[in-house]
């Protein structure tokens, strides 16, 4: 199990005949992803490494039943590519393309309201459920299947953290890069809700950066609705105000969006904040040690009996089982706001 993409996902590649599209289509296929189709207008009927190419997303979906589309087209064409996938009712659209004008995304965000498609990105590395399905540009080999969920606004920093987790023996359920732009299709709060509902995820790593208030929103959501341990890291503590740090969305403006504010907000929510990336695996291990005894006892009595650790059922764990019984099945797009849970879990003790 995993979130958003898994073994059964059928992926189509928009812009498959381009340099990036063809390279990554082959890489994804090599990883084991079911890449069923490509789309490049005017190139229908050809193929890329054995992947059939169609003239339109609609045709590709009709012929192959693709349920994920990944977009590698150049920035000036990306808005249209997103619209095409949304209108073909592809449930999950992942836009890798960097450099979309903000106005294009304002229009996309407005168009997506009330529609069933979930967009990830733009300006993102994509997402991967290790061992099952890779949709994007991340190197597959650094990942390992496991039970840590990871969500990040960055690309290579994500790889860095994933690699440290993997080497520490902590595999991942799903790793999602949500993108570095000011407006993205899927935010931290959306993915936290999905990880919280996912039976195959035990703990969550959140990698934020300067700019905007998505991290603050995430902290507020975690306080109220997330029972699984979360560890955060925020990049850009040394970034000067008013300067854009590579990502279009990474800018401290009007004194707002600083790393310090975001870190303080997470700590107030009881979320341990790693000072440096290499602290993350240790913090995750510590958080899991705190949670695990109760979990084991409740989930699997036999395993808990074999465990040497003391098992105590915390109030949080009790609340969690009560809740998980009552919780309806996750919807296609569970919006954090719409979650029906009214219970607040007891706050975890702060790290210091």
């Amino acid at each position, binding site marked *: 199990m995993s979130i958003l993409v898994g073994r059964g996902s059928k992926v189509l590649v928009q812009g498959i005949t381009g340099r990036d599209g063809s390279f990554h289509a082959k890489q994804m296929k090599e990883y084991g992803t079911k890449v069923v189709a490509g789309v490049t207008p005017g190139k229908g009927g050809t193929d890329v490494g054995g992947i059939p190419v169609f003239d339109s997303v609609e045709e590709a979906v009709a012929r192959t039943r693709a349920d994920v589309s990944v977009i590698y087209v150049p920035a000036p064409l990306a808005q249209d590519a997103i619209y095409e996938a949304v209108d073909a009712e592809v449930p999950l659209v992942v836009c890798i393309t960097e*450099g979309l*004008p903000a106005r294009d995304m304002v229009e996309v965000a407005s168009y997506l309201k009330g529609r069933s498609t979930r967009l990830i990105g733009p300006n993102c590395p994509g997402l991967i459920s290790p061992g099952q399905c890779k949709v994007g540009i991340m190197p597959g080999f650094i990942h390992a299947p496991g039970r840590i969920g990871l969500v*990040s606004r*960055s690309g*290579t920093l994500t790889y860095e953290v994933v690699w440290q987790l993997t080497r520490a023996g902590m595999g991942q359920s799903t790793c999602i890069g949500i993108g570095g732009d000011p407006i993205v299709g899927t935010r931290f709060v959306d993915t936290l809700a999905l990880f919280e509902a996912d039976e195959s995820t035990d703990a969550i790593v959140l990698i934020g950066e300067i700019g905007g208030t998505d991290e603050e929103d995430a902290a507020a959501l975690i306080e109220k609705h997330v029972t699984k341990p979360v560890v955060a890291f925020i990049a850009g503590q*040394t970034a000067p105000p008013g*300067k854009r*740090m*590579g990502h279009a969305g990474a800018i401290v403006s009007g004194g707002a969006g600083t790393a310090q504010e975001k870190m303080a907000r997470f700590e107030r929510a009881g979320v341990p904040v790693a000072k440096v990336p290499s602290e993350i695996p240790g913090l995750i291990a510590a958080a899991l040690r705190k949670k695990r005894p109760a979990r084991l006892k409740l989930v699997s009595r036999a395993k808990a009996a074999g465990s040497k650790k003391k098992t105590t059922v915390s109030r949080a764990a009790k609340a969690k089982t009560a809740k998980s019984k009552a919780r309806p099945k996750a919807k296609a797009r569970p919006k954090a706001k719409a979650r029906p849970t009214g219970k607040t879990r007891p706050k975890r003790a702060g790290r210091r």
Partner: protein
Amino acid sequence: MNLHEYQGKEIFRAAGIAVPPGEVAKTADEAVAIAGRLGYPAVVKAQVLIGGRGKAGGVKVVKTPEEMAREAGRILGMDVRGHTVHKVLITPSAEIAQEFYAGVVLDRKTETPLLMVSPAGGIDIEEVAHSTPDKILRLHLDSRGLPDYRAREAARFLDPRWDVQKQLARVLVRLARVYRDRDCSLAEINPLVVTKKGEVWALDAKVVIDDNALDRHPDLAELRDLGAEDPGEVEARERGLSYVRLDGTIGCVVNGAGLAMATMDLIQYHGGKPANFLDIGGSSNPDKVTAAMNILTRDSRVRAVLFNIFGGITRCDDVARGLLTALDRIGTKTPIVIRLTGTNEKEARDLLSARGMTALSDMDEAVRAVIVRAAEAA
């Protein structure tokens, strides 16, 4: 891309927003000649791509040609928070009765443009938001832009007189249109004034264009003032690198923006000071690596350089080749610490060790090493 006030005013004027006459001078003599045409009292305003010029003494009202020569001469060449003034805008002084604020920004939370107006004009809107938040009216804009009736609502918030409201509403509708049509990240008038005669004028203009949209606005792309920007940042942009100059002594070359920020933070965490943010992107093009080394080694404050490369799609051996080519071309003596991990790491190590260089694989270890090298070089 930030525009100068005079450039922003040109855009406003073209959109039908009332802007006072004004011309740009590069010397005191030019300033005196312009004021002779426009009349006294006149205002000299420093044109720099950073806020805070008023507090720095970069804006002055003058009454005579002698005063103009003196003040323009003083302001030209002065420093405003690290930016040298190369141009001044000369404009007639207005008889101001009231000062308002009007601005459109992107609200990331609602994913829409946001119009903000305030009767407390002439000061930083962040300050107003902090001290008297009820003095700001916020209107989120949808695909219709700003309909007239909402513009009138905003105008009523600013002034009770219908004559003035009509003019204000017209300005706000046009400001919202400029924001959208010109792909702005910010379109701000502060102050938006009512004169003693009851006329509405945009006395200042702060316009920031979305860098990602410059391709579809070639006329705006031409407005870039290379002389007013950091030369390193200009060169980096031309070479397809993302570079921001900082105050420290340790240069860094990193692939990826997030990792580049985390590298800067880690340098500070271990007691060093980063000299820059530099993202070479996913490419391992030797030309990019050479350009990066050129920018960093030309910066005399840089005592040591750290390469931090996480090989994913970027192959470590390509970056190593780029670095060796760069070193052959520019032959720097600046100490270099290399951290490589990921795709083709071993090939990269072999290439480097053939030239007597070693690469570390741990990020913390590399950062500690470069801090030591920088201290030795100091």
